[in-house]
């Protein structure tokens, strides 16, 4: 590989960024708990860590979104603390977020210079701006993109180039890229890698975040691993460090997951859910699975692996393009949540606040959102019955506060999740679909939720669980499906898998497979 020659040169470049013992806490959680990081000019420094390891928080500290509580951030030899993102930009740190923050209906040039357009007498110097944009695009090897083209009309890879052009328009000396390859098709990644090499050849430092180990091996110079907000390994050589080493540094954990014991000898019932050949183009393909009554089936996979989409399609919130979903032998109409609910499904979606809750409404009305019609007579709601049922659920799930007339928006994340799960304990739910049930939930409430899920299964409810946290899937599920890039790559009883195996499967560099080497 031609890019490899630069390695030694890069790792000897001057240190432009140094973080020492950086700590950032949010109420209830230490998101960063002593991070060390050293980035040299002209290197690609990869950040590796599981979901929740603190990568996003770290990026935001560097980008000026968050200010660290303690620790030192030295930028080009000077201690700094950026008051806001503009300040970070001005001093030469540009961040390219995963969801590109471009204005779709402005042109390429307008996006590149957004917020710092070259001006004279208050008028934008359009010609000058277009010229400089063309020059920057040329530096990025994409002189073919017209500066006047609307960003909306560009493909994903083109938009990413515009984001980088924006970074360069600020004369950035450090560019942070958050999972830049996640939005790209296979053949576009090679181009991304070429651009990153050109940037580093000009002495620009790049912090590169990716879950794909193969990509890190190809593009990276050094790797820093984060786990639970701490740096567990710094400056490992990106190419030589064995995969097992990297994975174990990411997973050797300190947060204890307390899983209730598997009830001995619970028998699993007949097949409840049968999914065959489920497909949605661009999201997932040919997914088949079964869930039996009383069984907990877990799906492990990264964000973007199609796991949430599979769940939503089974539930009818998305319409399957091919394949079938059967509940207790009867095929469900695709794309109909109503049909799924009538057949006994319930779902706790990934985004509680935007997908599941009426934040301003009282707890009891949120708990009975799927069942208030059952308690009604002749279309008249029965509020006292609803409150009684919600009270019972609040009691069972140990919701705090217990007063079901409180607005749901005032509850903590864990208690909000109990409201969403509790909603499906009313009525006769036979199959519960849980998408990231413990995201944003504190440790105590987490253990309680695990208990609830186990109890439900013991009562014969089938559970299909999606989580980015591999230990959660392994600890809770009876059977595990591993998904990668829209396909189920492995199905096995939970007992036959361990965390490292699953992580290997989940992150295997299939992206680079089949791509021209």
């Amino acid at each position, binding site marked *: 590989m031609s890019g490899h020659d630069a390695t030694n040169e890069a790792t000897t470049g001057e240190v432009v960024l140094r973080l020492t013992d950086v700590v950032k806490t949010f109420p209830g959680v230490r998101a960063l708990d002593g991070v060390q990081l050293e980035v040299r000019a002209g290197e690609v420094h990869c950040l590796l860590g599981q979901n929740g390891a603190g990568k996003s928080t770290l990026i935001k500290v560097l980008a000026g979104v968050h200010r660290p509580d303690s620790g030192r951030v030295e930028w080009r030899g000077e201690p700094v603390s950026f008051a806001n993102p503009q300040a970070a930009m001005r001093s030469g740190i540009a961040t390219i977020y995963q969801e590109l923050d471009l204005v779709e209906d402005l042109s390429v040039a307008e996006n590149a210079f957004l917020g710092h357009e070259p001006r004279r007498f208050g008028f934008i110097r359009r010609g000058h701006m277009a010229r400089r944009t063309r020059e920057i695009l040329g530096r990025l090897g994409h002189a073919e993109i017209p500066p006047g083209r609307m960003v909306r009309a560009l493909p994903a890879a083109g938009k990413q180039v515009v984001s980088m052009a924006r970074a360069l328009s600020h004369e950035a000396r450090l560019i942070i890229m958050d999972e830049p390859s996640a939005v790209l098709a296979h053949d576009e990644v090679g181009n991304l890698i070429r651009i990153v090499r050109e940037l580093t050849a000009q002495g620009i430092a790049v912090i590169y975040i990716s879950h794909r180990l193969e990509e890190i091996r190809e593009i990276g110079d050094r790797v820093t691993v984060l786990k639970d907000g701490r740096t567990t390994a710094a400056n490992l050589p990106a190419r030589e460090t064995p995969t097992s080493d990297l994975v174990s540094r990411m997973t050797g954990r300190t947060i204890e997951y307390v899983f209730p014991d598997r009830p001995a000898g619970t028998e699993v019932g007949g097949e409840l859910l049968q999914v065959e050949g489920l497909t949605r183009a661009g999201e997932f393909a040919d997914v088949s699975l079964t869930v039996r009554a009383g069984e907990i089936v877990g799906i492990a996979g990264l964000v973007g692996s199609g796991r949430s989409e599979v769940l939503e399609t089974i539930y009818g919130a998305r319409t399957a393009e091919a394949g079938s979903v059967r509940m207790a032998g009867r095929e469900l109409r695709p794309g109909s949540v*109503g049909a799924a609910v009538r057949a006994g499904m319930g779902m706790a979606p990934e985004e509680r606040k935007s997908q599941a*809750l*009426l934040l301003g409404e009282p707890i009891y009305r949120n708990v009975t959102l*799927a069942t208030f019609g059952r308690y009604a007579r002749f279309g*008249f709601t029965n*509020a006292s019955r609803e409150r009684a049922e919600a009270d019972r659920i609040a009691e069972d799930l140990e919701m*705090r506060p217990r007063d079901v007339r409180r607005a749901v928006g005032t509850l903590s994340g864990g208690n909000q999740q109990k409201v969403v799960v509790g*909603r499906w304990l009313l009525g006769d739910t036979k199959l519960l679909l849980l998408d990231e049930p413990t995201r944003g939930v504190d440790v105590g409430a987490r253990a309680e939720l695990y208990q609830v899920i186990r109890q439900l299964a013991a009562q014969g409810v089938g559970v299909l669980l999606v989580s980015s946290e591999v230990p959660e899937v392994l600890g809770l599920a009876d059977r595990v499906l591993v998904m990668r890039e829209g396909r189920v790559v492995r199905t096995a009883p939970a007992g036959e898998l361990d965390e490292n195996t699953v992580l290997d499967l989940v992150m295997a560099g299939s992206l680079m497979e089949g791509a021209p080497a």
Partner: protein
Amino acid sequence: MSQGTQPTATQPPPVDPAETATVGHRTPTATGRLSWWHGDGGEGAKRNLALIGVLLALFVIGAATRSDLYSNPDWVWANMLSILKLASVVGVVTVGMTFVIIGGGIDLSVGAIVALAGVWCTTVATQNFGAGGMIFTAIVVGVAVGLVNGTLIAYGRLVPFIATLAMLVAARGLAAEISDKQTQISHNGTINGIASTNLLGIPLLVYILAAVVAAGWVLLNRTTFGRRTVAVGGNPEAARLAGINVKLHTLLLYALSGLCCGIAAIMLTAQATSAQAAMANLYELDAIAAVIIGGTLLSGGRGTIVGSLLGVIIFATITNLFAINGLSTEAQNMVKGGIIVAAVLIQQVQFGSITQFFRRNRLTTS
């Protein structure tokens, strides 16, 4: 017996900031304050009390500026009835509008629907069927137009603003076509009598308004239809994932608004003993303004029928106040504009901050 959903004014329990915090999301700052502005009780009642305060203030201004008139109790009573009569037609339209707005939409075509229904029910052919035929026609036309609106919005995925704006133009056009741009006289004594009949000294129109408001209140606060309306407007995605048929419900909301317009068309035709394509001009603005003043969130999910009614009555009282003082309509409109702005500003202060207001908008429209 049902205590209903009126929370007995509870103190918001203290909230532990650590407990309410969630990590990794930019969440709305969840505060205990939320608990007193939810529902159809606590906060709604408080706000409605404030609106009644505004009405009292307007009464005092009237009494101060025309003490000669207000010294006569008979005149005061008659004047109050005339205010309510003035409010009755827009009031009926506003009840339907309240449902649409709580359900996350808007209906700009209400005035046009009233005109179309009024014109259609006063055609010579329809008048031949008598009062029953006229009422039936007005209501069917209103509901039908509402169903068209609802279908375009729910199943055609048009933005409510655009769909109903188009309907505003089209329905008035159709009304002008049907009436050949003429004023159509109603010759039906029963219909005309609706506006001139008094029962126990109170105009029949006021009874109709009261009945529609009462029905609307029950529908919103005591039925599954009302519950679905709040869910669909407050968080359509959550409603959908809870198994509620959001599209069907949206369709029904616009049909309900059309129904109210049909009823209003009869009332207005009776008042004028005629109908024409230009009738009920700008009713949509009066109705929307009344809903906003009444405290219904324009982004949906929360609102009260009583608040909307008070909004309509406040507007009618202002009109009356200017009339008895012999002031111009222009000055009146300026005051009304000011009141709308004031009402929205007060809303934003109550919901914490302007940013939160916008964030809610984003949530419910995405």
